[in-house]
């Protein structure tokens, strides 16, 4: 990467990090709430499924549901640019699309990964979650984070207002978590839910995390590949929509 390209990407990353930190409320809530949720609810899961399977299910449920709710951070950062009319202003500078994308994605990715690491860390350090292969778990979390970034970007460019964005991540978070079997195992869900579950990214996130925590490398890679495919599809949708809507905002 040429020096000036690196400098522009660094400037975008720095700036987006500043924007995130200037409004720390949502960030703090997305990081702290899942830890409270896990702490309060893991006994319920352990009572239902036993110690080992219970804490595993509780951690997976918390990771998937709260990371979906954290889409508000990704989507909000893009929608805010549209509301402030800064998106086109930035596009009229020398910054290249890849640098713009890096500037938006990396701070959000750091937040999402931090959230997931905190949840898994609490589960492992305090509640006895077994992590047989940290590398597999890292792969699953990374793939899920990519899918989240893609989904967040798509929501950010499609939503026309913050209320639409709020509906998308609140409702979408619960629906995708439930459909994926994060909150309640699919085995005890109605047959139609089991039938449609694979259409939900949440299903593949649960699959990848379960496989990783079970030490099943092949299944982890397979589910992670599906998550990467979701990331690509949502990312392309977001890019196409962003380009289509970009044309007429620099009023002159």
């Amino acid at each position: 990467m040429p020096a000036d390209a690196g400098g522009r990407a660094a400037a975008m990353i720095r700036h987006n990090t500043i924007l995130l930190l200037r409004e720390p409320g949502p960030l703090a809530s997305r990081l702290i709430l899942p830890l409270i949720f896990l702490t309060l609810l893991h006994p319920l899961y352990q009572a239902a499924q036993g110690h080992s399977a219970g804490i595993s299910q509780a951690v997976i449920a918390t990771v998937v549901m709260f990371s979906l709710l954290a889409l508000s951070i990704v989507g909000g950062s893009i929608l805010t640019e549209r509301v402030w009319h800064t998106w086109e202003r930035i596009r009229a500078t020398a910054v290249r699309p890849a640098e713009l994308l890096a500037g938006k994605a990396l701070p959000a990715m750091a937040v999402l990964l931090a959230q997931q690491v905190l949840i898994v860390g609490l589960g492992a350090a305090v509640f006895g979650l077994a992590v047989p292969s940290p590398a597999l778990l890292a792969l699953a979390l990374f793939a899920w984070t990519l899918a989240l970034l893609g989904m967040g970007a798509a929501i950010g460019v499609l939503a026309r207002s913050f209320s639409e964005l709020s509906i998308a991540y609140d409702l979408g978070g619960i629906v995708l978590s439930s459909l994926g079997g994060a909150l309640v195992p699919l085995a005890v869900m109605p047959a139609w839910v089991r039938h449609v579950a694979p259409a939900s990214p949440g299903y593949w996130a649960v699959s990848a995390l379960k496989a990783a925590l079970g030490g099943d490398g092949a299944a982890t890679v397979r589910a992670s590949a599906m998550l990467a495919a979701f990331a690509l599809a949502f990312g392309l949708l977001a890019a196409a929509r962003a380009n289509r809507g970009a044309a007429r905002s620099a009023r002159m």
Partner: protein
Amino acid sequence: MREVAGDGMLVAEGLVKRYGTRRALDGFDLTVRSGEITGLIGHNGAGKTTFVEAVTGLIRPDAGRVTVGGIDVRRDPCGARRLLGVAPQELTLYVSATVRDNLRLFGALAGLRRAALHCAVDQVAEELQLTEVLGQRAGLLSGGQRRRTQAAAALVGGAPLLLLDEPTAGADPQTRAALLEAVRARAASGAAIVYTTHYLPELADLRATLAVARSGRIIARGAQEDLVRGLPGELRLRLDGTAGDGQVPASLADRTRSDAGELRITSTDPPADLAVLLSAGCTPVWVDVRRPGLDDLYRALTPEVSHAG
């Protein structure tokens, strides 16, 4: 200021852009040289916005070519944008970030780093009277301060081509004066500037050359004095009150209108017309001659707007 060689810092040739059956640009030509301030004027829909989008590479014209500092915008849009500083009419600030953060971002995207960036931010803030508010969030600024911050973001990178869209819209006199001074200073140091405004006296203050856009093309281009030469001015007078319009000779009647007791005669030769009035027995108690100005030029070139207005 970065130096870029060439006859025109901005050269647009034969730009055509269609949206369905409508031609937003229809053979738009414009050249702006380094050190030149060009006042781009025209009514809504004249093609100004589309032209700017073509210069910034945000749209691709159906025909024609734009170069910025010799760089073809279609072939290398990012390279061309490196030479651009843009201040859109709409305020486009990161309202939760400080003024300094806003300026740092645009300076860094223009290629400034570390000490040079810090220095450029401080300098442009001082120039536009923003030093006191550098640490404030942009969302907490007054309207004038926001307008100056917007302009500062365009200026901070030292771009050799500036596109400033109504930078003084809604600005107080202090803001207006600071902005015009900054624009003049940039032009003096070699920047080419495209400046749009509906407040035409600003263009006289800036001694800008003019480009008048209409229906997607430039219909008049040149120095202000050249363009207004030959346009009629106005002879204004108030008669002694014992007579009215009836006293005006027939030869002047079709160029005369009455406004609140004042006669206004459109005239290319006010002394001769005044002589005609005096010889016809008119007894003016007050006479004024208004030379043709940019308003007259604009009305003459865009009659549909004049009639509408």
